[in-house]
């Protein structure tokens, strides 16, 4: 059982666009058991107004971005990431992210994100593409 669980995590990462350029050695390095997170349905993952969070990548399940202005929560699914703004800018998140189903994530702790992004520039490039798309969608 345990052998499969580790292999499953590496394979799960390999199937995400964010990590599509990485080989198995790099994926095994990223599949850090200390970074694996599991949340129950309705549990808060990212907390508005609280410092010290990290960058989350959804491996399985669904979450929602909940902003107190009453707007429709944005749905997040496998492969989506969140928490990058508060982590990169070292500020408090302005929205909650709440698990809508049992949620399986990878969390890269804030203090380790810079080293991570420099270590894996292909991941950084793909993150930049996604963030740029979000910006374009907002401006259009």
């Amino acid at each position, binding site marked *: 059982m345990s052998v499969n669980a580790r292999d499953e995590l590496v394979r799960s990462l390999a199937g995400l666009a964010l990590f599509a350029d990485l080989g198995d050695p790099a994926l095994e390095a990223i599949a850090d058991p*200390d970074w694996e997170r599991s949340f129950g349905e309705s549990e808060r993952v990212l907390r508005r107004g609280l410092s010290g969070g990290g960058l989350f990548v959804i491996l399985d399940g669904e979450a929602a971005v909940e902003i107190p202005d009453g707007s429709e929560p944005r749905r997040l699914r496998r492969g989506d990431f969140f928490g990058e703004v508060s982590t990169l800018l070292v500020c408090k998140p302005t929205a909650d992210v709440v698990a809508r189903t049992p949620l399986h994530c990878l969390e890269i702790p804030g203090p380790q994100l810079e080293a991570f992004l420099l270590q894996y520039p292909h991941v950084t490039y793909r993150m930049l593409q996604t963030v740029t798309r979000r910006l374009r969608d907002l401006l259009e």
Partner: protein
Amino acid sequence: MAAARDERPFPPGDYPVVVVGSGPGGLQASYCLARLGVEHAVVSADERPGGMFRLYPIFERLLSWSKPDAPAERGTRAYEWFDHNSLLAEEPEHQALVPAFMDRSFMVPSRAEMEAGLAAFAERVPIRVRHGCRWEGTRREDDGGLVLATSDGEYRCRAAVFAVGTTTPWRSAIPGIEDVPHYVETGRPQDYESRRVFVVGKRNSGFEIADGLLPWARQIVLGSPRPVQTSVIALATVRVRYLQPYEDFGLGGGTFALDLAVERIERTGGGWRVVGQGTTRPGAVDLEVDDVIAATGFTTPLLDLPGLGVRTVSQGRIPALTPFWESQAGSGIYFAGNATQGAPGLRKHGVGASSPAVHGFRYNARVMARHLAETHLAVAAPRERVDPDGLVPYLLEEVSSAPELWAQKSYLARAVAADGTSEIVPLAAFVDESGPDAVAVAVEMNAEGDVYPAVYVRRGGEVAERLLPSHQLNDFRGPEYERELRAAL
């Protein structure tokens, strides 16, 4: 023998709660439940308390401190911070038992000293345990209750507390690793005299082996995909095991710590071949060695609990838990001891809780017992009350000296409600669950190792965080802190 067996407590039957395990987690959980008046049975496969400390005698000395003399008086609540290995008790005669058995050669107890402290706790309190009774399976009844099948028969209960440790050897998915000995099968250090040894894994157990073999082996190579987080280790109790081999690596003394994804392990004529790819530094690695040891860690023996909805984290090794250490599947499946690390808390700045160690999980057990008693058995647990006029100095005293907050940084908090009721709570529960207006304080640490108080004020369902400055001597009781805290409130 048969007559002696008949004298064991807790025969199979119906109990409100069943605790499985007689290590420090099980003993602490039982003590805390008993203090709340919760009737429960304790069953354990071991023949006496603290089986973990006999199962793997390679642990000849613990990592965590117990300082017989410390800035706080032995037996006081503040002293608990300086004694990371004793179990908690309200009665003075049952407190701080581990230092009483230490010969003071080191400030960390030996395995035997730790086991003696645990045994004394179980005997003196006393904690009654049905030893020699092995938990073998679990099922859910139609009424929501649980049935634990054991080697002695079935136990029915409303809630179960599994304190079974994280003690089952675990191997990563490397072809050939099943043929090499696991950490628990490591021989005596002298068996490795003049040999080249490859250790799969660069965490606690890998470096512990390397540390033990340094005086004997010709060469030691440790390999795993992730780099060693030296900045994190420098602040952790495991540095005792890491630093000597890592220093040897840094100085070119013959030890290597490689960031390596091992692809396969093959048996050769006289030894082993280890083949892999570098991660931090890409490139093929192909090594011929005399011995390979899989220091790939442990897993919690969950048996059939996943069939009841218990999910896992950490590559399937640890149960995924709520902030009150109940399985995310809910309904009365709780954990105590090392497995409580499955409730990660906020992990602010990536700083983890001390739940894998006694000094962390002993406090988890106390909070868990209250939650279980109130949620599943409608037992009203008593709470302290704080005079509103004394709230500010009370909270500042807590962040300066409360062992719960110091042991479980960003994890456990002192919460005081508007009506003055006060208790230790999981910080994640305080900030995420609705409740009356209240304030909670925690001790926190950032990635640079600065320690400072954090204040969380819940008003109208919204929680606001305010971080107070650090202090050179970790004393947060002065007028500057009083002003800051009053402003936050």
